């Protein structure tokens, strides 16, 4: 992947993530402050498909954003680049995507 493509994907996924992370954090604080039990939280997340959509988008953006950041660190610290680095990061993205999707499916 070229530096230019990686840069664009990184910025776009960041733009998507910024509001989502804030809502996600707000949600956690709200649920905990409100003293909701696990069962109550689950009943709410499953009651509307909105949360499923929200967290699917979240997971997709994370699966793009995190591997690209890691890619830069590996490239600059170890000098590894090219095909092998792209494969490593592709695998990492897939792991994030699958584990994330699995978690979302359980709570929604």
């Amino acid at each position, binding site marked *: 992947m*070229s*530096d*230019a493509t*990686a*840069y*664009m994907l990184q910025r776009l996924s960041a733009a998507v993530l910024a509001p989502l992370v804030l809502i996600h954090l707000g949600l956690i604080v709200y649920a905990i402050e409100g003293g909701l039990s696990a069962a109550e939280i689950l009943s709410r997340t499953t009651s509307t498909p909105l949360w499923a959509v929200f967290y699917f988008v979240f997971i997709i953006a994370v699966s793009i954003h995190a591997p690209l950041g890691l890619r830069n660190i590996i*490239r*600059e*610290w170890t000098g590894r680049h090219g095909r092998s680095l792209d494969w490593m990061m592709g695998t990492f993205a897939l792991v994030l995507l699958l584990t994330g999707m699995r978690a979302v499916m359980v709570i929604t």
Partner: protein
Amino acid sequence: MTKILTVKIWRGGKDGTLESYSVPARKSQTVLDVVTYIQRHLDADLSYRFACRVGMCGSCAMTVNGVPRWTCRTHVDKVSQDGQLIIEPLKNLEIIRDLTTDMVPFFEKWEKAGGRFEGKQSRADKITAIDPDSKKRLAASAAIECINCAVCYSGCDTVRARDDYVGPAALNRAWSLFNDEKHTGQRKLKKSVKADGGCYTCHTHANCSQSCPVDLDPAGSIASLKRSYSMFGSRS
């Protein structure tokens, strides 16, 4: 009684060491004055570069107490720590000997980033008028006064981390060409700047802009290139 400065200077090549010299302190003394004093009075085979001594030519840059600086316009009072100076060659460039570095890769990267002007007019043609207040001319003017000193290049961590990164000065030059309406090589420029090791490799930490002795803003130029050549650019 004359105050004495303790000056440590890098001697030798890549595996060299710091050597200590005692230099009388003077009023309004620059770091270049100190180096010249050592070469004239204490150690005649000390190798270093300078030419203009007034901040025009960009040849005198060195690392002074860890920070890259133009030494002819850096006053000792401002940078010495307890009367101590450590003077080393610029970082991110191969040391030839003592304080002299090989600048060839620095200038090769200007070419790599598409920095060579291309025009289509000859001296027989009428000169194209450029409105001095146009947006492009103002942007070019803001970036154009680079003295090629490599201070920014020497202070950039991304240059250190990636051999293929062309660095702040080359991209700043590219940005002034981007805004030069007489430059006919725009397509080539775009290709070179967008390539790996070009503007999208920069991390925008702006160390370059902070250290530029003539107050240019290479980080700003690079950010403008990133935007202009992206899908949000107004023109490419």
